[in-house]
């Protein structure tokens, strides 16, 4: 290879330049050599794909496999390879066609736009209760602990039929699994803990499945079809539980912070709550908290953006870079809630695009509208430089966000 970026010149993961900007190298490679080789923690390398157009092309191309059990799948952390636990079935995240479509569709009906709308009153109730608790507390409180984490955790627990009283158990373990700095053993232990817990829960539900929750409904439906499989439901429960709370929680914290530090943008929503959904698309684009999760491995030679990626080579389709690509978004580093950013790739792109995206949108919308309406005097209680950002995790966010309510 020629050009400024030789193999291993850049090693992943790269640090965000500041909490509000992607690693500065993204811009450099996007301009100089938009598809270039980068080093991975295990000493191998992968192609980093940085342009919006190329990221979309790569993620919708079936010649790139999402199978994390493929020995050539690029791994951002050592010891990350799935199926370390041989009893753990592949999740839909890791499936390719033709296995993927039917497995995704089996649960898709639970996440349609209309189904999510039906959940709106209950989510509003949950948010109201959390905001009541914030208002009842005197002085400084942590928005992450009081609002950002409990709202999506309560919602996903109710939807799945997981007792919320166990939330500490899986929140602690999810955080450990998603950390880049824990040892492979510690992550494995956390993973096994959550899988073991869900294995027991699913077994209990199998004895008397209720149509009042998603896991129960899956058991009933798949048994009727004759396709029910215990291990597959445990994997699905795992994916939905882990993906369902940590991601949305981080977007709630970061969105609150971003709106408080851009009062002119916040004023737009306050004046017209009809703008909140548009604002959320822009906030999703601006933060792109799950940046390099969209790794793939080529199962055939593929040409993308003038570069031939050979069979068995890995790619990292960098959503954060794509979402700050000036050819797709004018002045991409500016937060501009009016821009209409719906074509961002913060939920990924292609067949694996986030299943829970409309639930996430609704939770964010209800939280933002309710929070700023009921607590107009909300303020960050510490200087920005003291905020604990998650620089060491796969999913970007905040560990805590101290605020005052009056």
């Amino acid at each position, binding site marked *: 290879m020629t050009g400024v970026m030789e193999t291993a010149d850049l090693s992943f993961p790269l640090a965000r330049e500041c909490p509000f900007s992607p690693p500065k190298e993204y811009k450099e490679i996007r301009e100089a050599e938009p598809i270039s080789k980068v080093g991975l923690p295990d000493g191998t390398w992968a192609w980093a794909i940085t342009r919006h157009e190329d990221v979309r092309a790569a993620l919708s191309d079936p010649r790139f496999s999402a199978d994390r059990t493929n020995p050539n799948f690029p791994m951002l952390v050592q010891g990350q390879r799935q199926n370390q636990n041989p009893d753990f079935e592949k999740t839909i995240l890791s499936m390719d066609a033709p296995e993927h479509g039917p497995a995704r*569709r089996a649960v*898709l009906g639970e996440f*349609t736009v209309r189904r999510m709308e039906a959940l709106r009153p209950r989510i509003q109730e949950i948010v109201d209760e959390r905001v009541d608790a914030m208002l009842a507390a005197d002085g400084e409180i942590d928005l992450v602990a009081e609002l950002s984490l409990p709202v999506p955790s309560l919602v996903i627990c109710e939807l799945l039929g997981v007792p919320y009283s166990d939330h500490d158990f899986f929140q602690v373990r999810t955080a450990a699994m998603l950390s880049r700095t824990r040892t492979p053993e510690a992550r494995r232990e956390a993973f096994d803990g959550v899988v073991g817990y869900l294995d027991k829960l699913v077994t209990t539900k199998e004895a008397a499945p209720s149509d009042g929750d998603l896991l129960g409904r899956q058991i009933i439906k798949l048994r009727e079809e004759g396709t029910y499989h215990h291990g597959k439901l445990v994997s699905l429960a795992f994916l939905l539980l882990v993906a369902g709370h940590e991601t949305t929680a981080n977007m709630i914290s970061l969105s609150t912070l971003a709106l408080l530090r851009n009062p002119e943008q916040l004023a737009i929503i306050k004046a017209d709550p009809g703008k909140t959904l548009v604002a959320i698309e822009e906030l999703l684009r601006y933060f792109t908290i799950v940046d390099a999760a969209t790794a793939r491995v080529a199962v055939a030679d593929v040409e993308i953006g003038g570069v031939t990626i050979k069979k068995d080579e890995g790619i990292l389709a960098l959503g954060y870079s794509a979402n700050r690509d000036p050819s797709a978004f004018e002045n991409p580093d500016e937060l501009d809630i009016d821009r209409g950013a719906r074509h961002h790739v913060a*939920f990924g792109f292609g067949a694996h695009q986030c*299943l829970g995206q*409309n639930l996430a949108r609704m939770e964010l919308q209800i939280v933002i509208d309710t929070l700023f309406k009921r607590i107009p005097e909300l303020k960050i209680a510490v200087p920005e430089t003291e905020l604990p950002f998650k620089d060491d995790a796969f999913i970007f966010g905040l560990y805590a966000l101290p605020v005052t309510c009056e």
Partner: protein
Amino acid sequence: MKIIADTGRCVGAGQCVLTDPEVFDQTEDDGTVIVLVSEPMGAAADHARDAVHICPSQALSLVE
């Protein structure tokens, strides 16, 4: 202009429904796309173009 939907490719993310719920819907059962207005006009036609662009799975296309 006519909207063509390939439900075999659809991954049911509902981006089309969010773009214009009067033109698109999703099945209750497996969440795949239903085209409510196959030949949209005016603003609905613009929304259909947006939906084609945003759809993550290239399940939607237009015959102009």
